[in-house]
């Protein structure tokens, strides 16, 4: 076949190149550039090579210690979030009505937390949890729990986690609900005919059919919780001490608080890389989970 040569086609591709260049490539390259240099202000830069990266990954330095500690907290936070929100989301989706006016009502109620701006969510919980004027804090303290997220590490963690569960479980539930709705009736009818119990229906039909949406839910929730900034910043400001200082909060402290552009740039790149790698691993593992298993003997 002859190839059509049409140089004018470049004009159609060019806008995309420009948009991608200005929106992604150029800013990212600026960060790469900063990550290799040091500055003392006054627009003077000095070459530092991979120095910042070495420091970042060495726990004995101040930068490395802070980064790795916040990274640990962040991974723990994401793990807890996923462990709560995914099963809870599935349970909510399963218990939602399948038809009638109540479907619309449920969807609206579920969507509400998702529509609230993140710093408003933070403010809501910041006030809600205060022991002096917040409904939650006041009631808890009057019931005999010594709850105070400003002074107690555990209380601060619980508050941030409960807040995130309140804010984002809906997303998982909505995705799962969509997955459940797409299962043809014939599957449920066949399961009835086959005498499957409720649990067997869940295990053999609903869970496998939700596989795809669950993958999306896990990816979204991992990325969002791993990048979380606004809500904990508004509620606890990263405290008490550094106990709820996640990577993004640490990053902002370094970049804007201390104006260490080189350190901040190096941290951003590593942060970005971690998210990419974890998402890739999740995706690969979860998409392969449904494929051929090694052959078992006598598994009739």
């Amino acid at each position: 076949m002859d190839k059509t040569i049409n140089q004018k086609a470049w004009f159609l591709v060019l806008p995309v190149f420009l948009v991608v260049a200005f929106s992604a490539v150029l800013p990212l390259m600026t960060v790469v550039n900063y990550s290799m240099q040091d500055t003392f202000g006054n627009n003077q830069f000095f070459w530092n090579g991979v120095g910042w990266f070495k420091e970042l990954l060495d726990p004995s330095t101040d930068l490395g210690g802070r980064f790795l500690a916040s990274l640990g907290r962040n991974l723990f936070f994401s793990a807890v979030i996923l462990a709560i929100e995914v099963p809870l989301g599935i349970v909510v989706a399963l218990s939602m009505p399948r038809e009638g006016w109540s479907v619309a009502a449920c969807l609206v109620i579920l969507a509400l937390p998702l529509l609230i701006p993140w710093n408003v969510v933070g403010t809501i919980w910041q006030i809600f949890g205060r022991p002096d004027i917040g409904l939650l804090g006041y009631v808890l303290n009057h019931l005999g729990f010594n709850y105070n997220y400003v002074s107690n590490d555990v209380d601060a963690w619980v508050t941030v986690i409960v807040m995130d569960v309140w804010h984002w479980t809906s997303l998982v539930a909505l995705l799962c609900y969509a997955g459940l709705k797409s299962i043809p009736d014939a599957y449920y009818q066949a399961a009835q005919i086959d005498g499957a119990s409720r649990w067997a229906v869940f295990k053999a039909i609903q869970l496998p059919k939700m596989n795809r949406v669950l993958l999306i839910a896990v990816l979204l929730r991992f990325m969002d919780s791993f990048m979380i900034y606004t809500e904990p910043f508004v509620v606890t400001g990263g405290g008490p001490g550094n106990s709820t200082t996640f990577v993004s909060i640490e990053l902002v402290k370094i970049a804007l608080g201390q104006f260490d552009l080189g350190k901040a740039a190096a941290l951003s790149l590593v942060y970005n890389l971690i998210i990419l790698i974890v998402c890739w691993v999740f995706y690969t593992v979860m998409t392969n989970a449904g494929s051929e298993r090694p052959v078992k003997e006598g598994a009739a």
Partner: protein
Amino acid sequence: MARIDLVDLAQSYNGNDAPLESFALKPVTMTWRQGGAYALLGPSGCGKTTLLNLISGIVTPSRGKILFDGRDITPLSTQKRNIAQVFQFPVIYDTMTVGENLAFPLKNRGVAKAEVDARVRQIADLLDLTPYLNRKATRLTADAKQKISLGRGLVRSDVAAVLFDEPLTVIDPELKWQLRSKLKALHRELDLTMIYVTHDQTEALTFADTVVVMHDGRVVQSGTPAELFDKPAHTFVGYFIGSPGMNIVPAEVSGHEARIDGHVIGLHRNYGVLPAGKKIEIGVRPEFVDVGAPASGLLSATIERIDDLGRIQFARVRVGNTKLAARVPPGFSVSGDTAGLIFNPAYVHVYADSHLVEGVA
């Protein structure tokens, strides 16, 4: 293993108070023999799937009762009824191997492991699924998936009946033949009652010993393929079964004679005087009408075209405004565009308001 009785069974999707004419299934009373191979035949929307779902319990009837061996099981859930059903599109459990899929209905009912294994092997063997037993079911072709669905329907030995809801729709024509003969063989081997829903007459007539023809929510006739062919109880059966379908011609009938446009056709039986006010028609299959050279004693018809089906030729003719099909006898060549029609009186039936009228010999 049971006899199934339907007593005044009816189903309306618009509530029980809806007029009877709107019922998806009008009241039906009939008996399905243990071990029979039945086909439910009818066009789309005639209520055959509804009837099937009523028997399996997926749909609860608006009226009437279903008895298994005389025991009323109408209020029982699908799980509690002893029934297997295969659906139009393959349903397989994605996370399981083929073997686990086949074993699923047995495991759910707490059958002992040794027995499950034996039964699964037997069914896999019958359906040629043995090489796939340890493979995941997801990656197989639609044909193989439907075989698994069939297998799950057949794996329980104690079911009252196995219901098939157009199970071969997704299968290639070539394989359709094989699977249908296989089902027939399985029916003999496993001694199960099978009810097979289809809109394909070939499928119904080759599979079943009793074909139940449905039309507009009603069972219009049930009988052997030969009975349906030779003596349709309803003009719909005559028209729906056979290719081309039965010729239905308005006529005046009295005694041993039918009159079409003043032309008299002799009848084998005596119909006396038929009640006035009913639509009287005669029905005769194209196989029992021959075209011949125009002659004074024959009903003359205009030939419109000849369909050559290879083995046999049918002439499409017109008498007045009525279109008919007639056989072109071997060795007869049509010349001109008019012909005489020769009726075989033994196969001319009389219908009043679409229902067969039995004459007196």
